[in-house]
């Protein structure tokens, strides 16, 4: 069924209070570190102080002898997993790499790489024990920078890494894991036709997802082999699958229970602690809690990839782009797997172009293995492309929104990565931005305005949901996605809408791996789309049952019953004359009409429908300090259909703010030994409340016909445009183009000094 007629909706599109809200404002919600188990021990991970080193010996004997220590593990306690990409329901994953990322084997590949772990009766004893573990290292030359890692003679991280995507296979190993290319049309012909060519190089830094909750888990490994894993992650089924694979446990023997998750943004789509805690628990037979410190989060877990973006755009003087070329060199961290593929695919997806060539390189270096971060890959490449397009617009003297509109992708546009777009709403975002009052306001001195657009695919995938009618006519919804930003509310709303009952009568629960069918993780902006589809279908099945139960009570044919406003009615006078039966009336008699009323639906949701966004940013540059203040920010996005508009706005505002942090402040600073110098929130500065204005949002609704309510994923694309929007605004304010992130005060100062060299005091 479809519910695209907005006027007919009673619940979807309203802004009720989330079902888990009260627990979260009174401190009762149970996050990863909040759980305890009887007899629980405290674990602690020992980490490499070296960026690149061979581990020649680990002596754990002193730690084991410390009173209160019950288990110590190293890589020797984990199966040595061969180099193979396996497929366990969450997509391809190289389990050798994942295993070695959780616990270094033979070599430590980055500062902060786990090399051993202990479990003890208190966290203080565990910390003491970690210091007693003696690790002998043979320190190796290291490499941090992406282009240095690609250079001939760079220190090699993996001597069996031969660049994929190059034929014939290279003779020598390198740090380039993969080369990927996309071609459309004839780039040489396109540039030959161009009247203006702009070629620029941009660079971005890896940044951390910086969820406020550090990774945490509490696990028990029973003597019968049955395991319980309570942890904060973006997917309990992902935790189960990865733990099973890394430790050789049957999935049936792992029950993964999702904690409330204190932010993830992609960074909690893989495991770090859970397999280690299980190995410790197995060794000592007691439950084990492992919680990271903030320093461990920075040194040992995911950042997002940074990289180098080389853009070349050719255009006619009219503004029509005739050729575009892009080279991306992305940081993967210590193991292959940067999001360079989607980086390539998203870069020009906003444009209708005939001639495009894109090359991407996936490059390893001595940094933590990158993890997904909101629209993984797209923010970097879009920063380059959207900055370059702005440079083009300025050079041609064309309004940047008009230039984009002239070249905009629309239904029927064949994208550079292949498919032809359908049902997309990019142009409406440009129009809404152009018509927004923000775009017309005047600016003062040292102020500037920038615009930029962005694209993200969104995904669907496997989801399960069940709907249970309780005996009193209230309803339980069980679904398999950890609620990272209000999704319980949208699930309950969709169920309530289908059932025709008040939102408050529906209580959603996030089930563990034993209480709901497989559900792909919370990520890729898929939950409201895919799991929402499963919830809707399960609720529809319940409605069918309710109709047949009413028919049984009335002793008429089920076809003669219709469901409206939460009640069964006879469908017309031929069906007979009966008082309507409410859901509660039917529920109380469910035993007599066939038993409990319940439905579970498992689907593989397809056709997620991409998201487009256009952002407007105003800045003011303090010429004395180089500080950039965000004066005003407006984010316009095609959201399909907003189920709970407040949480859609929240996704947009949060993504924008993370993008502003990436643009202005955030970066990893390494010392000459490859050690991270700023593993804390004091020196790794994420945006704080006083850095920002209100983030204005405009939700354009171009419904996605694949979803019963027209929803599109909304969480990813808001982080795509901000870096270019801020950079374009800075260029407008000071007349200098910042091509290297972050655009922090020292860099702005240097740019201003170049415009007007500072006079020495003596002069």
């Amino acid at each position, binding site marked *: 069924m479809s519910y695209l007629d907005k006027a007919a909706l009673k619940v979807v599109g309203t802004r009720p209070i989330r079902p888990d809200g009260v627990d979260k404002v009174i401190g009762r919600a149970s996050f990863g570190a909040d759980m305890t188990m009887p007899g629980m021990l405290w674990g602690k991970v020992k980490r490499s102080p070296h960026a690149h080193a061979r581990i020649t010996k680990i002596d754990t004997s002193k730690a084991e002898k410390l009173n209160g220590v019950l288990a110590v593990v190293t890589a020797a306690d984990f199966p040595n997993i061969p180099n193979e990409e396996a497929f366990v329901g969450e997509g391809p994953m190289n389990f050798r790499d994942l295993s070695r990322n959780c616990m270094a084997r033979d070599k430590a590949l980055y500062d902060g790489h786990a090399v051993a772990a202990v479990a003890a009766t208190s966290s203080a004893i565990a910390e003491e024990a970690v210091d007693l573990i003696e690790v002998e290292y043979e320190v190796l030359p290291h490499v941090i920078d992406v282009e240095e890692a690609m250079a001939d003679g760079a220190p090699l991280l993996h001597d069996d890494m031969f660049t994929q995507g190059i034929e014939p296979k290279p003779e020598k190993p390198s740090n380039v894991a993969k080369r990927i290319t996309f071609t459309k049309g004839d780039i040489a012909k396109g540039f030959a036709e161009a009247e203006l060519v702009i070629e620029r190089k941009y660079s971005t830094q890896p940044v951390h997802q910086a969820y406020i909750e550090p990774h945490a888990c509490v696990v028990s490994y029973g003597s019968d082999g049955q395991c319980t894993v309570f942890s904060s992650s973006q997917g309990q089924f992902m935790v189960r699958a990865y733990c099973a694979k890394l430790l050789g446990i049957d999935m049936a023997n792992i029950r993964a229970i999702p904690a409330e998750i204190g932010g993830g943004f992609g960074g909690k789509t893989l495991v770090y602690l859970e397999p280690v805690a299980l190995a410790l628990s197995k060794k000592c037979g007691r439950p084990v809690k492992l919680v990271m410190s903030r320093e461990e989060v920075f040194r040992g877990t995911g950042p997002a990839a940074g990289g180098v973006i080389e853009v070349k755009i050719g255009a006619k003087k009219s503004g029509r782009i005739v050729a575009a070329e892009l080279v991306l060199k992305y940081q993967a961290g210590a193991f292959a797997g940067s999001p360079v593929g989607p980086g390539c695919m998203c870069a020009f997806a906003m444009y209708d172009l005939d001639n495009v060539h894109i090359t991407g390189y996936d490059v390893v270096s001595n940094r933590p293995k990158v993890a997904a971060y909101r629209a993984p890959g797209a923010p970097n490449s879009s920063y380059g492309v959207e900055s370059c397009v702005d440079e083009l617009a300025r050079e041609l003297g064309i309004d940047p929104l008009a230039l984009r509109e002239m070249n905009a992708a629309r239904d029927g546009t064949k994208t550079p990565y292949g498919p032809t777009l359908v049902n997309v709403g990019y142009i409406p975002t440009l129009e809404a931005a152009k018509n927004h009052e923000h775009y017309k306001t005047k600016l003062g001195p040292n102020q500037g305005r920038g615009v930029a657009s962005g694209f993200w695919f969104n995904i669907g995938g496997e989801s399960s949901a069940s709907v249970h009618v309780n005996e009193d006519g209230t309803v339980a919804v069980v679904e398999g996605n950890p609620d990272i930003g209000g999704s319980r509310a949208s699930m309950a709303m969709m169920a309530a809408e289908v059932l025709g009952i008040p939102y408050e009568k529906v209580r959603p629960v996030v089930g563990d791996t034993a209480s709901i069918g497989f559900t792909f993780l919370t990520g890729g902006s898929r939950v409201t789309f895919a799991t929402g589809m499963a919830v809707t279908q399960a609720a529809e099945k319940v409605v069918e049952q309710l109709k047949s139960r009413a028919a049984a009570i009335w002793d008429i044919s089920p076809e003669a019953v219709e469901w409206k406003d939460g009640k069964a009615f006879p469908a017309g006078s031929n069906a007979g004359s009966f008082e309507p039966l409410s859901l509660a009336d039917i529920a109380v008699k469910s035993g007599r009409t066939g038993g409990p009323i319940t439905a579970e639906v498992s689907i593989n949701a397809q056709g997620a429908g991409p998201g487009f966004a256009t952002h407007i940013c105003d800045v003011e540059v303090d010429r004395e300090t180089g500080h950039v203040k965000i004066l005003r920010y407006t984010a316009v996005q095609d959201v399909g259909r907003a189920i709970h508009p407040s949480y859609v706005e*929240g996704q947009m505002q949060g993504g924008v703010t993370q993008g502003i942090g990436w643009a202005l402040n955030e970066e990893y600073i390494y010392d000459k030994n490859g050690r991270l110098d700023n593993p804390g*929130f004091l020196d790794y500065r994420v945006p704080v409340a006083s850095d920002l204005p209100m983030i204005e949002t405009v939700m354009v609704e171009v419904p996605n016909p694949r979803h019963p309510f027209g929803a599109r994923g909304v969480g990813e694309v808001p982080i795509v445009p901000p870096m270019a929007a801020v950079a374009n605004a800075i260029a407008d304010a000071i007349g200098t183009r910042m091509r290297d992130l972050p655009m922090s005060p020292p860099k702005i100062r240097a740019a201003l000094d170049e415009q007007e060299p500072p006079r020495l005091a003596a002069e």
Partner: protein
Amino acid sequence: MSKHHVTTTINGEPAEYLCEAQQTMLDVLRDELGLTGSKEGCSSGDCGACTIICDGNIVCSCLMLGVEAEGRDITTIEGIARGDELHPVQQKFLEHAALQCGFCTPGLIVAAKALLDTTLNPTEEEARYWLAGNLCRCTGYDKILRAVMDAASVMRAEAGR
């Protein structure tokens, strides 16, 4: 390692506990007293997720020792609601959808409550600077500020001003 005996007041109720000299107030709250509403995000006083009120001042409980609570009056997130009724800041956080993951929420609510204990007429800028010690990575602070400003207006109305 002998433990210290501490007598204090937590959320209006008398409390006693034993703690080690190096244990932080946050560790005591979470691990000794089962008050896990205060969160550890950094243990260096940079994120504010562990914010409590100690004798009327907001404090990062990760920077305070458990023994320092002796004789003090401590309020944690568990003590912000007025009995069964949510504090206006809590209610407005819900109404404005000012939380996404909810992990920073306890600290932000405690800090915002302390602000409104001080003044019922904060400007948005004052509120932004007051809350600048509480990191939120999900919301971009927009809805948080709206919730706090709305709570202030509710409390002004309650106070008959």
